[in-house]
């Protein structure tokens, strides 16, 4: 619909677009020039400085950090998926107390800063003299936080399904639980798969909070490297780390977009009644 904001360009609009392009190019060139001159004036562009990224020991340290990051991400992802399914089912339960408990869980944990949850898990048990290792403090708090978010995503997916799906299940004699497990969850997950992957990107970014409690993940190892090498290596090392996150997350986002695309294509090619149903689902997901 973006294209509807402007018409097919006539001569005057084309001229305007040319002016806009020139102005935009000048603006960007200006920003780039300021950045480069600032970097150059402070000796931040020297090849020796950026060559540090080619050093074997730094690479080993960063890859070790990436491994630790992925370890936390995968463990907490598995836990939060399980928790998310339970919460989604809980919020759709016909028992008021289950619904209420799931609702409180979601509202409270979604509303708190993740960092505060990390402190809760890391420092709280020390009141009873229990020491929680940094890995588990990070995994548990990320899992608790994301179970609430993923639960809501799954719930919206299940709610977006046509009513007839559950009714057909009950009609052939399935219990509520069986209909949920065999019919609603599998379809609901498919509907919200792009949002789920977007949440995985967020989860992966959240693991970087581990540096605050001293878990040696990617960012912390980068910080250690900068402290060892000296402050002037901050820009190359942190840029390298940013690239690590960027590449991993872009691959995830790209996968999400492909899935989304595949789904829209299917809904267009499907028979008429099915496609209108699919289109409705699409709208619910976007909302």
């Amino acid at each position, binding site marked *: 619909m973006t294209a509807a904001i402007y018409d097919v*360009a006539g001569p005057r609009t084309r001229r305007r677009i040319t002016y806009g392009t020139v102005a935009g*190019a000048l603006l960007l060139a200006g920003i780039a020039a300021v950045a480069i001159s600032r970097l150059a004036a402070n000796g931040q562009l020297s090849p020796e400085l950026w060559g540090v990224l080619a050093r074997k020991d730094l690479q080993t340290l960063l890859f070790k950090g990436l491994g630790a990051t992925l370890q936390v991400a995968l463990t907490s992802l598995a836990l939060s998926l399980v928790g998310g399914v339970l919460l989604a089912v809980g919020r759709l339960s016909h028992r008021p107390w289950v619904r209420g408990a799931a609702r409180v869980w979601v509202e409270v944990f979604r*509303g*708190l*800063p993740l*960092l505060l949850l990390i*402190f809760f898990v890391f420092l709280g048990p020390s009141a009873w003299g229990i020491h929680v290792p940094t890995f588990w403090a990070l995994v548990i708090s990320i899992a608790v936080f994301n179970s609430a978010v993923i639960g809501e995503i799954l719930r919206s997916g299940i709610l977006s399904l046509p009513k007839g799906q559950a009714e057909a299940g009950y009609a052939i004699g399935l219990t509520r639980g069986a209909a949920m497990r065999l019919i609603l969850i599998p379809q609901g997950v498919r509907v919200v798969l792009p949002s789920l992957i977007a949440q995985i990107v967020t989860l992966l970014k959240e693991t970087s909070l581990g540096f605050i409690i001293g878990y040696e993940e990617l960012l912390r190892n980068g910080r250690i490297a900068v402290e060892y090498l000296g402050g002037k290596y901050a820009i190359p090392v942190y840029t390298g780390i940013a690239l690590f*996150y960027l590449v991993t*997350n*872009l691959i995830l986002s790209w996968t999400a977009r492909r899935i989304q695309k595949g789904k829209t294509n299917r809904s267009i090619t499907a028979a008429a009644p099915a496609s209108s149903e699919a289109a409705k689902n699409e709208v619910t997901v976007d909302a």
Partner: protein
Amino acid sequence: MSTIINNLGILWSGFAMTLALVAVSSVAALVLGTILATFRVSPVPILRTASTTYVEVIRNIPSTVIFFFALFALPQVDLQLDFFAAAVTALSVYYAAFFCEAVRSGINAVAVGQLEAARAVGMTFGMSLRLIVLPQAWRSVIPPLINVFIALVKTSAIASAFGVAEMLNVMERLINTDATAVLPILFTTAVLYLAITLTAGLAAGRLERKVAVSR
């Protein structure tokens, strides 16, 4: 409990600092985000590309890394910011990308007929965006904007790790002075954060019902 009561003043100052941090950075991020969203739908390809790149890069990097850049990379190019300014910079740069996406989704939600009408009466891109699209887009973006705002409130806690004396930082200092009161301090901080985020969430729900336009 006595630790909480004795330190109400300092907890309150942390709460106020969080509010100040959130207020300044959300306004800055909103302005930058709206400009980026305008670029993203503009007919000028270079602006579209630049804005898309900005959003894609920033959204896929952890906010903590952005904080690191604001605090440790900027001084390397002779831009020494104090902690508060650095935190505001990091939060604004990061959340501008998310505000941009929220505003863009709102622009996309405006009925195509509105634009066709604007074009039919001869409005330019700038006029139709300013007079027709954005005023309507604001309504449908209010709930997603509040969601981004809630995320910003929660992310502002990260500033504590870099020495801004906001709520979480105050909490850590209190825990350090009185380790026996860990749980009450943690709970009080949690309640104060929930006071902001749940209120904003309720407001979002209200506004959604109030400003929702039946299309």
